[in-house]
């Protein structure tokens, strides 16, 4: 059972192993605060969608399952979006269109289809938390690298350090995102952590 949770963090890490959910990973990883915000949002949606879909797995007919899943996921994404607009407007602005895009994040539909629709609630919840955590941690790692090298310092919730070297704006740019992930993927493969 506990494996359902830990799998999502390394062995089935959504970003580095499954290569899912890349869009937000590249777009949002320019700052650690944003990464945490996006990660939390994804965990919320993943958790509750998996929960609902698992609960309803014997009720939803196979033929219409994808549209049903999509509506359920989209509902939770909308809840997140409204909540952010109301209570965390600054984060909402930073995450921008990537908030509604959570609904097409392959991770969520992927887990719903592959796991939650076929497994009991407790396992589905653990799976969601594990995958969500794996996603968030990967996002944070990428952000630390990009923020550090790109702005010369890192900060979390207002507490930060600035290091005495000239940053390379390149890392904040899209090209930098591609490079960091490419290098990390190659590195993780080399070191044997994945594949």
């Amino acid at each position: 059972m506990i494996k359902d949770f830990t799998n999502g963090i390394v062995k089935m890490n959504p970003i580095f192993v499954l290569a899912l959910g890349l869009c937000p990973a590249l777009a949002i990883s320019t700052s650690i605060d944003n990464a945490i915000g996006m990660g939390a949002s994804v965990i919320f949606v993943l958790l509750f969608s998996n929960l609902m879909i698992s609960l309803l797995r014997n009720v939803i007919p196979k033929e219409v399952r994808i549209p049903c899943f999509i509506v359920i996921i989209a509902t939770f994404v909308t809840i997140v979006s409204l909540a952010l607009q109301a209570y965390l407007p600054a984060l909402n602005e930073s995450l921008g269109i990537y908030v509604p895009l959570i609904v097409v994040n392959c991770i969520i539909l992927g887990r719903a289809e592959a796991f939650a629709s076929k497994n009991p609630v407790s396992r589905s919840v653990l799976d969601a938390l594990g995958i969500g955590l794996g996603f968030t941690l990967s996002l944070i790692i990428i952000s630390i690298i990009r923020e550090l090298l790109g702005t010369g310092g890192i900060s979390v919730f207002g507490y930060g350090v600035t290091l005495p070297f000239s940053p390379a704006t390149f890392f904040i740019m899209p090209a930098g995102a591609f490079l960091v992930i490419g290098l990390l993927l190659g590195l993780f493969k080399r070191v044997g952590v994945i594949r």
Partner: protein
Amino acid sequence: MKESWKRVIVLTSIVAISVVVLSSIYNITEPEIAKQKEIKFEEMLQSIFPLATDYSGKEGIYEIYSNNKRVGYALMANGTGYGGYIEILVGVNEDKTIKGIKILKQTETPGLGAKITEKWFTDQFSGKPIGDIRLKKDDGKIDAITGATISSSAAVDTVYEGYMEKIKMMEEK
């Protein structure tokens, strides 16, 4: 036949539940969302008119009051820069000179054109009559950002044209 009905019913029910849930959440959050927008706007106004206590107006033209006395106007200016839309709030004194500007929206290149949001650049606009709002290379009094002439002139043009357009609208009233 029964199978088809089941599919339709389940899907429709889920959509219906979704609508109910979301409209409830919306009702709860909507006042807060509206408040946030207002707070943000007021912050922008405050940054240009620190002593302001009230404002009124709409459609991009606002009158600013400090203790029931009008101290100036705030105009919304829109333009296009290097990377996209630029939106600037232009504060205007009673004597029609610029009180200050605040860049609300821009998507210029980070580290280059995005520097138009920096204080030293925006401060240049303060206290000047609209006639001076041009880049120095165009016989005005605004220094461009080194290496980001297009963003700088986009900002300047946005302020100039927005000012002209809104002042004209005010005079027509």
